[in-house]
């Protein structure tokens, strides 16, 4: 990394204490450090809603940052704040989700595609028929409703697949596990499980209650990826949903600050699917598996072309000046 940075970057995130978001913030820090262009990061990172994020964005405007990278609590809810930021000459980049503010740049994981890809694979594994246990995220969250669209799209392609039960895990491990166990106790037959990223506890629950190991779809969390190669008889797929999108957001912001505007306003990072049913998938899983990572962290800790930090840097989770 070069000597002196020249930019201050503000970051706004509204979910704290969740492995994915923590990795995202660490990726932002690591990328800022690795780029060598950033003097200081102003990070507003707490649990709040769209109104709270507006407050944070305005505080960042007050702090006179050069760019703001934001993981929006809601695509439309923070429009006013982003508009004010642009007016103040601040570059705005939204990561993970799109925003409705037209002046903002977006580099996003494709949530709809995430769900579609996993669900489609799952339904194929089920032979195109049977019952699926549909474990969603948090009711009322916009990422959850995007994923629901993708799931429903896949479902429409497989008319013989039925939803045995739909539950909201709230993206909480304990709740998800309890729901899985309760569901198992009902004795309802089911042929597959789709999870919105709360995955390893589901495998645990199946194993503990000696239930038949049906195919399970999850995210690329370290714990689940490990299980996919270590749990005997488990067929499953991890769909990538890289938290390192945060690092990509920082990169994009720096490019714009340096005058290299991207061709289009929105960059979508499409997810990949690694299953342990094919050799190709197995190889990818093996390459990605990283038992040293905290089990809640996604293993896809970097995005080719977009992030330049090393694994040590993201794990160290230190930004410029720390």
């Amino acid at each position, binding site marked *: 990394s070069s000597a002196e940075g020249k930019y201050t970057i503000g970051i706004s995130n509204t979910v*704290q204490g969740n492995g994915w978001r923590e990795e995202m*913030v660490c990726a932002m820090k690591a990328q800022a450090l690795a780029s060598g262009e950033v003097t*200081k*990061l*102003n*990070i*507003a*990172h*707490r*649990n*709040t*809603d*769209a*109104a*709270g994020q*507006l*407050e*944070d964005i*305005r*505080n*960042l*405007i*007050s*702090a*006179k940052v050069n760019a703001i990278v934001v993981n929006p*609590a*809601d*695509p*439309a*809810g*923070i*429009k*006013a704040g982003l508009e004010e930021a642009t007016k103040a000459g601040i570059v705005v980049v939204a990561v993970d989700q799109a925003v409705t503010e037209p002046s903002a740049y977006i580099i996003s994981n494709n949530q709809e595609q995430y769900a579609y890809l996993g669900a489609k694979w799952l339904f194929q594994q089920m032979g195109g028929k049977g019952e699926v246990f549909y474990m969603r995220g*948090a*009711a*009322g*969250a*916009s990422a*959850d*409703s995007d994923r629901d669209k993708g799931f429903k799209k896949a479902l429409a392609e497989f008319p013989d697949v039925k939803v045995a039960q739909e539950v909201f895990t709230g993206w909480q491990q304990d709740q998800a596990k309890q729901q899985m166990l309760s569901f198992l106790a009902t004795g309802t037959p089911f042929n597959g499980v789709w999870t919105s990223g709360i995955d390893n506890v589901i495998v645990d629950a199946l194993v503990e209650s000696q239930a038949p190991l049906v195919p399970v779809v999850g995210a690329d969390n370290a714990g689940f990826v490990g299980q996919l190669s270590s749990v005997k008889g488990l067929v499953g797929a991890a769909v990538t949903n890289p938290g390192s999108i945060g690092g990509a957001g920082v990169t994009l912001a720096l490019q714009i600050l340096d005058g290299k505007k991207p061709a289009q306003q929105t960059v979508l990072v499409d997810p990949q699917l690694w299953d342990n049913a094919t050799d190709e998938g197995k190889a990818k899983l093996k390459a990605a598996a990283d038992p040293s990572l905290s089990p809640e962290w996604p293993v896809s800790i970097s995005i080719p072309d977009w992030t330049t930090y090393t694994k040590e840097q993201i794990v160290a989770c230190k930004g410029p000046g*720390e």
Partner: protein
Amino acid sequence: MSHFLRRQGWVTGLFALLIVLFIVTKLIQPGYGSGDFGSLARAVLPYAFAVAAQTVVVIAGGIDLSVAAMMALTSVTAASMMAGASEEYALFVVPFVLAMGFALGALNGLLIVVTRVPDIVVTLAMLFVLQGAALLVLGAPGGGAAEWLKAMISGTVPIPGLPDAVDAWAPKALLVLIVCLCVIWIPLRRSRLGLSIYAIGSSELAAFRSGVPVKRTRILAYALSGLFAAFGGLALTMSTGIGAPIPGPYLLASVAAVVLGGVALGGGKGGLLGPIVAVFVLRLVRTDLTLLAIDPNVTAIIEGLIMVAVVMFGAFITMRGRQ
């Protein structure tokens, strides 16, 4: 007399703290100006209404755990009604939503009075009910808001006869807050109802024996709380332009600010000014933490420390005063 002084003393102290914080802010960010103050006012708005909602019931000797859920429900209701509707339609939506908050608050009170279940349980149960209802109204964040409503809290009020530089320090959001609170609170405080609310919070038995209609007063206190929460919900919709069915962090924040503002949990004491000033203090602390680019993991520690320290300090002062 001494009690009166002590209470006013606390609010004065909070004001002083707020001023110190403004000075600190100015030191951290010399460019901190009227526009930033406007941002502060807008950030304060939903919190202030949440705190007002909590304050009324706390003074009446209760607690309302459903404040944030009520805000979410009123917010999604307003947003879903206004989505795609005409600007004028909002003129109907606003009173409707306020009435809804009032009615649901009254329902809270009614359930407490009728079932005799402790208020903390009733409002906890209502928290789930209102959250559920919010999800039924809007499954995901969405909806819209009339432009004039959004405009009501952005920008400043031109005050005739004053130079623009002064006007700039009178953000509309602040004025909306002051007007809404004063129009309800000041007459209330002077009315028999207000007195009754303090009375049932102070001693329910003595109030009953003084001829206060305890049940009706309790129901009305919760209804007012619902009304303030509905204002809060509207404020959310006005600032974000949408409604979100998941409640924001307003419940715990409201309880904390109530206590910081010198209102005794247990009832009968305090006023609305203290908690509102406390909200400003808490929001400004947040601003300063962001301006200082403090490690976000440390900000939680700092906010917790400030909360505990201020309340401990208050307790310490009271103890000294008693000796």
